[in-house]
């Protein structure tokens, strides 16, 4: 079976989305967030799997981790870089790269491949079956 046909949709010049920033675009009537994470771009659907909220408007922040230290103290820490997006409607958290829901990994946001080429950022979008 051949790979499904895709096309590239230009989002913006790379320089226009600084590290830590995002651009939300409409493609074929779908809202998609494109994030510059510093070490690369990611793109996720702007539709929360909870109740459809605009998750890509949410804050991108480091993830809260915790470990039990010898002696029993619970020490919380943050991941070194912002890697988690929280939906502004009710706070569901997702991995901003993979779209996986942190509280329930069986749920995930849709993600899209991002291509950086010749100074521009593109989304790779599957052609709609006609």
């Amino acid at each position: 079976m051949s790979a499904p046909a895709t096309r590239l949709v230009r989002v913006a010049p790379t320089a226009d989305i600084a590290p830590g920033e995002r651009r939300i675009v409409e493609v074929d009537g779908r809202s998609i967030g494109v994030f510059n994470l510093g070490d690369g771009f990611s793109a996720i659907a702007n539709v929360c799997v909870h109740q459809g909220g605009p998750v890509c408007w949410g804050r991108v922040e480091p993830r809260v981790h915790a470990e039990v230290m010898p002696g029993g103290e619970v020490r919380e820490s943050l991941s070194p870089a912002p890697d988690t997006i929280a939906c502004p409607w009710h706070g569901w958290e997702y991995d901003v790269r993979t779209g996986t829901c942190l509280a329930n990994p069986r749920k995930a946001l849709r993600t899209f491949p991002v291509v950086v080429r010749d100074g521009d950022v593109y989304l790779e979008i599957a052609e709609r079956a006609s």
Partner: protein
Amino acid sequence: MTIVDVDAHYLEDYTVLADYLDEPVRSRIRNQPQGWLVPNSTGDRYLSGRINRDRDVPGTNPRRTQPDEVPRIMEFLGVDISVQISNLMLTLPNMNSRELAVGLCQGYAEYMIDKVCDPAKGVFSTVIVPTQDPAKAADLVRRYGRAPGMSSVTFITQWAQPPLGDIHYDPIYEASAEVGLPIVYHASGAGLDHFLIDGFQKFIETYTLGFLFHNLATLVSVIVQGLPERFPSLRFIFQESGIAYLPGIMYRLDEAYLKRRSEAPLLTKLPSEYIRSFYFGTQPLERPENDEHLAAIFDMVDAEDRLVFATDYPHFDYDRPSAITTLPFVSEEGKRKILGDNALSVYRFDGWTPPERETSPLVAGVAR
């Protein structure tokens, strides 16, 4: 289809409520710092800004509702009727001062009737009763409960002592029966710490338990004290705890009743049968991964006839109508009842007539 939201919150400026009151209560309320006026509890509901309402409805102030913003908020939510409930007073029973509690409830009723309620547009409110003073609360019900914008009588269940089935509150129930309004029991996220078990560290703890505890306490007291038998015309609606807790208390209370019927001699049927005759706000509706589990709960609580949809907007755990429309095991007829028809039959929405259209144009937004 008419979509009724039986629980949304109006973020009022309490100093404005003072304008409706006589001195000296007027200045006492106006000049009081809010934190001291109505104490709340541990935790930041909005996760330090992570949950954010700023972009929900452009041009509105997400921290202070203005009267003309309510219809736009309703459009954003996709609802046709909204019962706006004071945000400030969600922990009202924690006030020791009777005069200030009565004053706030009076100012709130006056303000809502004067500035906010608009039955033709589906904007309603509720008479909130100061449980600290049942006689004065009954006066407020008689005075404001007949206004067309008032859909119900609301008890805030946090900290209410004695529990709300007690004869102590009979004047309020009598007045409510007289004006023909249903009783709403509204729990809130405050009230577990500083009252029952102090020392919880996180809001997720007090939130999960606080609402539930107060609804459970109210359900048990209302049933065991025979309120439905003593006031047979009253109808009861419980808000703000979802529905998954109901089977647990239904069957536990049945079990206790079978052993200790002599302690509840007014009852003429099993406690679970009373619970099946009460109404329950849906929000925040639980969604177990296995739909059959929720379907079984729906069956146990007679959901299609007893649930009333609520958003609880703008609180962090609000629901949209899609919480109901996406349930795969509920019939179209059942969805219509839960989203609107049940509320239309139990609340009083005088002055509202359904617009001349087949379906709400807003239902389109609901499918998201």
